[in-house]
């Protein structure tokens, strides 16, 4: 029988790779704190959305005005016309408390992560696309590798991975924080530009919602990729910090 297992047995045994610390303690800690914060934010965010599953553009929007779009789900408030004959239980109280507490966790953790990434040069080294990756050929081959769900051959992040991480860390999450603050009547009393630049309170809310969908999509793809690339080794790398087997 010439299956793959017998082939690998016939190969000369390689000595056990030395334990490699792939992520620093700070990167691992901030990763999981962010995971906790994100989970709390997405669950409570959804609870808040169902109290008014209608989205608008501009400054104002309410049940008497025309929405930009609606989510076809029941609501937790009976004033909202949803077409459903029932009202879901109101969860806004604890959801609001937890949403803002988790937002603080995300912001403070994120600051620590950003400072660390800049000081240690991790961003420049691992997230900024390498010189060799700045080409259409590298880009298209990265795309085709992803489409074929090819497992990575190196530890180094590939181009699409780098661009995704940069997009999330430097664009999507900052935009989520900005649009969140832009909905705060108190914050915008001190910094009116925060909401005026976005086109109004309802625009900020709509952007906050759409951005959260992009972040959720990122997390789902991220988890899928981790499973695809080797769940055990990736989890070891991001928890205890060392990987010895299972290749990259």
């Amino acid at each position, binding site marked *: 029988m010439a299956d793959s297992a017998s082939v690998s047995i016939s190969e000369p045994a390689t000595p056990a790779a030395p334990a490699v610390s792939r992520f620093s303690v700070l990167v691992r800690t901030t990763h999981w704190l962010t995971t906790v914060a994100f989970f709390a934010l997405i669950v409570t965010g959804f609870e808040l959305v169902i109290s*008014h599953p209608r989205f608008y553009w501009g400054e104002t929007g309410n*049940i008497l005005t025309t929405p930009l779009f609606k989510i076809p789900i029941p609501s937790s408030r009976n004033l909202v016309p949803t077409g459903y004959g029932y009202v879901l239980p109101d969860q806004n109280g604890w959801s609001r408390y937890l949403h803002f507490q988790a937002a*603080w966790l995300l912001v403070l953790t994120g600051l620590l992560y950003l400072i660390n990434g800049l000081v240690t040069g991790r961003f420049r080294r691992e997230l900024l696309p390498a010189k060799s990756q700045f080409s259409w050929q590298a880009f298209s081959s990265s795309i085709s590798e992803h489409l074929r769900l090819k497992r990575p051959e190196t530890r180094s992040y590939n181009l699409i991975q780098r661009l995704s991480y940069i997009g999330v860390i430097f664009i999507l999450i900052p935009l989520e924080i900005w649009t969140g603050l832009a909905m705060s009547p108190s914050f915008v009393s001190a910094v009116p530009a925060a909401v005026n630049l976005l086109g109004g309170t309802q625009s900020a809310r709509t952007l906050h919602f759409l951005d959260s969908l992009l972040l959720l999509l990122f997390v789902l793809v991220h988890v899928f990729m981790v499973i695809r690339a080797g769940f055990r080794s990736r989890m070891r790398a991001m928890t205890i910090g060392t990987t010895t087997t299972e290749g990259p």
Partner: protein
Amino acid sequence: MTDPTRRKLIRTGAVAATGLLGLGAASRIAQRYGLIPPDSGGIYGAGETLTYGCQRLLTRHSLAREFPRSMISARPVPNEMAPPKEAFKRLQAGGFADWRLAVDGMVERPAAFSLPQLRAYPTHSQITMLACEEGWSYIAEWIGVPLSQVLNEVGVQPQAKFVVYRSIDGLWDSIDMGDALHPQTFLVYGLNDSELPVANGGPLRLRVPRQLGYKSVKFVTQLTLTDSMKSFGKGLGSMSPEYGYSWYAGI
């Protein structure tokens, strides 16, 4: 135990002790400057205190955004409301002639104001947004008298830290003196050039435009000045935390 380990342990201990001392001092300073909300206990206390403390530092002198007349919403939203109580219906039947706003607690001259008395003060108006915690919003012109005018009239004692306000339907809430004396905190009796409709809180509503809609309590009949929220309800600053909602609604 090797020396480097011991040194590391001592250093960690020193850092932790300094951290705790620092937190203790920060908490005392924050308390002194009114940066700790009444509902700072419990599992969400940390986030709530950070939000309130930071926003208070940031918004000490800030004004809620005001809008041009052209941006006033076509229809001010009449929100969900419990059916009016007997006491309200009686006053409504009398055209609110007997409506009184009682002001008591830590004031020099407790008083009760009728609606004509409140209207006799110079009229102020603001075109500001009412944003509900659910996510919807509308803009309206709110007409009334600044709360600070009424507070000056009764003479607030210097130790007062909160204004507790009560609705005829039993709801009560409170704001700190920063919000109470803020130039845009109004006792509102008019909306968009007419009397404040009952559906929007008429005949008298407290308007706190730098906070979400639920702080702008409808049908206000009593103001009480106090230096501590401990003796009001469960001591959490308003009924909102008792229902699970935060006392501070600046975000």
